[in-house]
């Protein structure tokens, strides 16, 4: 072991001024050092928390986006060319007697967002690394390899489109910070999951010679089975009303198409086809949706149960169901042929669709809505 070598320090250049430093000073400015009016007022006092004591989430989220209905006295200081600026309430047809009554049950703020997504990322990376090390893909049949390349590949586009053009877009528009942040977190779940699937596709392209890493684009653009899903996604991105976009995606499309594909197909059949990796990715996306469904349910329940506007809101949402359920059912039916593609078919389309429909009807019944009859 060598003796530590003393670092050679260059002397200050001649003529250079001596650098000074601020001196610490004991000021006694800590809590409790004196008693005076408000010396113990140690909670934000301009909003009512849901329970006796505000959570960190409530503290860091509530009222950060001002509202002329609450404390904002001067009104919005900038307007669009032909409409009010800020966060106009008429950007959705739904109404609330108190938009601020919504709090995200997931309590998403900085720490939860990064911890949750980092955990998912680490889980996926470990799974993929282990799969590579174990040569897990080498047992895949050509049929299954093609199935994953085409269909799991196509699905990533749906996640990307919804993440970018439904949820990123909608988080600009709701009347409160609590709603917008919940939608914002929803958007990054979608975008992260889309990228998870894309990078999985890249991994498979590098690991499996027979894996066609480009076919997902053709499948998404032109394969007849996927055109209903693509049409549904594109039409969702074209909705101008932020609440309708979130509703038609999370309450209609997701149960009838998203969960149908992810949980009721992929999670059921992959293992029987020798693939224990794909479900771990798909499960992460399903976990994201379950998390996002919690805020969705809380938001739309609040609006359907609103004492003043509940009835009108239910009528509007029922109209949205009438408009969007046929689109999503059509997308689901068009997707039916892919149930026949794998060598091992452990579930039928009818079974999968029945399971998805049950989840959907349960969800909308909770909201006091009814499912439109099939045409």
């Amino acid at each position, binding site marked *: 072991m060598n003796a530590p070598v003393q670092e050679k320090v260059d002397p200050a250049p001649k003529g250079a001024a001596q650098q000074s430093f601020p001196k610490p000073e004991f000021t006694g400015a800590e809590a409790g050092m004196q008693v*005076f009016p408000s010396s113990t007022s140690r909670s934000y006092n301009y909003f009512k928390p849901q329970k006796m004591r505000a959570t960190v989430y409530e503290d860091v989220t509530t009222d950060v986006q001002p509202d002329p209905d609450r404390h904002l006295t001067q009104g919005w200081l900038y307007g669009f060319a032909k409409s009010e600026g800020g966060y106009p309430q008429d950007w959705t047809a739904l109404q609330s007697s108190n938009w601020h009554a919504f709090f995200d049950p997931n309590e998403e703020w900085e720490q939860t967002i990064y911890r949750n997504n980092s955990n998912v990322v680490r889980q996926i990376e470990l799974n993929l690394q282990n799969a590579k090390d174990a040569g897990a893909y080498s047992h895949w049949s050509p049929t299954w390899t093609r199935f994953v390349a085409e269909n799991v590949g196509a699905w990533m586009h749906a996640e990307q489109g919804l993440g970018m053009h439904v949820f990123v877009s909608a988080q600009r528009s709701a009347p409160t*910070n609590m709603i917008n942040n919940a939608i914002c977190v929803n958007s990054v779940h979608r975008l992260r999951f889309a990228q998870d699937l894309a990078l999985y596709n890249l991994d498979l392209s590098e690991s499996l010679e027979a894996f066609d890493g480009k076919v997902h684009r053709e499948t998404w653009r032109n394969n007849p089975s996927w055109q209903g899903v693509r049409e549904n996604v594109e039409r969702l991105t*074209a909705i101008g009303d932020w609440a309708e976009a979130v509703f038609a995606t999370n309450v209609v499309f997701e149960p009838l198409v998203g969960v149908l594909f992810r949980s009721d197909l992929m999670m059921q059949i992959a293992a029987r086809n020798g693939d224990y990796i794909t479900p771990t990715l798909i499960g992460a996306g399903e976990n994201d949706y379950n998390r996002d469904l919690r805020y969705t349910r809380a938001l739309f329940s609040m609006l359907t149960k609103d004492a003043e506007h509940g009835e009108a809101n239910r009528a509007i949402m029922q109209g949205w169901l009438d408009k969007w359920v046929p689109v999503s059912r059509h997308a689901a039916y068009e997707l039916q042929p892919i149930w026949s593609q794998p060598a091992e078919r452990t579930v039928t389309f009818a079974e999968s669709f029945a399971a998805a429909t049950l989840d959907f009807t349960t969800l909308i019944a909770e909201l006091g809505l009814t499912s439109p009859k099939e045409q």
Partner: protein
Amino acid sequence: MSRQSLSKAHEKITELSWEPTFATPATRFGTDYKFDKSPKKDPLKQILRSYFPMEEEKDNRVFGAMDGAIRGNMFRQVQERWMEWQKLFLSIIPFPEISAARAMPLAIDAVPNPQIHNGLAVQMIDEVRHSTIQMNLKRLYMNHYIDPAGFDITEKAFANSYCGTIGRQFGEGFITGDAITAANVYLTLVAETAFTNTLFVAMPSEAAANGDYLLPTVFHSVQSDESRHISNGYSILLMALADEDNRQLLERDLRYAWWNNHCVVDAAIGTFIEYGTKDRRKDRDSYAEMWRRWIYDDYYRSYLIPLEKYGLVIPHDLVEAAWDRIYNKHYVHRVAQFFATGWPVAYWRIDAMTDKDFEWFEDKYPGWYDQFGPWWEAYSRLAYPGKNKPITFEDVGYEYPHRCWTCMVPALIREDMVVEKVDDQWRTYCSETCYWTDAKAFRPQYEGRDTPNMGRLTGKREWETLYHGWDLADVVSDLGYVRDDGQTLIPQPHLDLSDPKKLWKLNDLKGIEFGSPNVTLNNMTEEERVAWAASYRSNPNRTPASV
């Protein structure tokens, strides 16, 4: 992730987007800019798989420092002068941050480039991070600093105060009006690329000098995300430059954005740094010196001027004018004086300047004492209730200024004040450029071309109008800036909490009438107004040494 695999991964992610054929995404936010001819430019590569763990690690460091600060009792050594100004700063900044998140769909709507969309979406979640991490820092201050009053009412006070209004129009500027003007030029090309340097780098170093090492910890963590945002902005700028038709709009918006950012950010951050500090070492940089380094050299000379090679006209005159206002015309000092004169309607306590401060200011800004010294001496003399009204309502030779209709900082450099009738109302402006912003730039036509997507200035822009003719005690009650005994004011013009007799109460403000300069202006005859304008511009607003 290695650089090679990052490039591969990024390339793969570009495959996620597609050209829709059934329906196209709703365009809810319009722009007058055109991107039809633009080559697609990539911003900094960012993959969410590496992004989330990276940010989590940054968070862990921040929260570790927070725990350490509490265990080590950082607040034994923080300067109250500094912490009080944080009640204003930290009430403002989470809103511009969250507004930046909300601005991203504007830019996504406007720019047809999926790679930039991905960069903007990451920026969106960054901004949620910034907003909530800053709110949490403030929560920690509220829990551990000696005087929580003002922190406890933070977001309400931000939404109703005479100073919050300045910061609010800054954040609203990101999310309203022409999508590119707001979300690209104003937010990214100027606010983030130029002024976050003073906000998030210069100011935290001053915090550390005042015993507060949490502000640097949080804000440097925030600033480390900004390079990606700057890259997003630059990519959009390069795309916009591909179309000659955009040039006129870019030049308009650079002038507006530069000047408005200067008016607002330099006013606030300059005040916090110069008047919030107790560090008066002569070799400590003044705000002007920091500005020269971070804004003039690092932004103007290294970022803006090189854009001339693309044929863009850079607002050299406004950069020089901003410097002139900061250094020669004492802009920051006049703002601090305005904030301090308005102390009864603040939600923090404002410490007086002392002989030690005077010496430092005179050394850094020659001529400072003659202009401001006697006023601060009067401020100290009138600091306690009983024998006098608040300084605002005592005759110390200081005339309460008129607000600038555009930037909302008052017209403090009095000789530059502009008064014009705009939209059938007499309005005052701090400068010709702020007048131009309202009268020329934020209009549906600009220099003969239609600009149907440009935003509008709206709202009750002069805060004082809200309380014209009110009793001052009623104003403060209505604002809610009263401590939990129902009488003592949150704001005080000093830091002494030890003697209840030295603390101003609502009763001390009764019988004082509050007025709006703009209402008064609009009630003047033509002759009165001309005379008033001449008097306003020629009044040095200097407290005589004898007062």
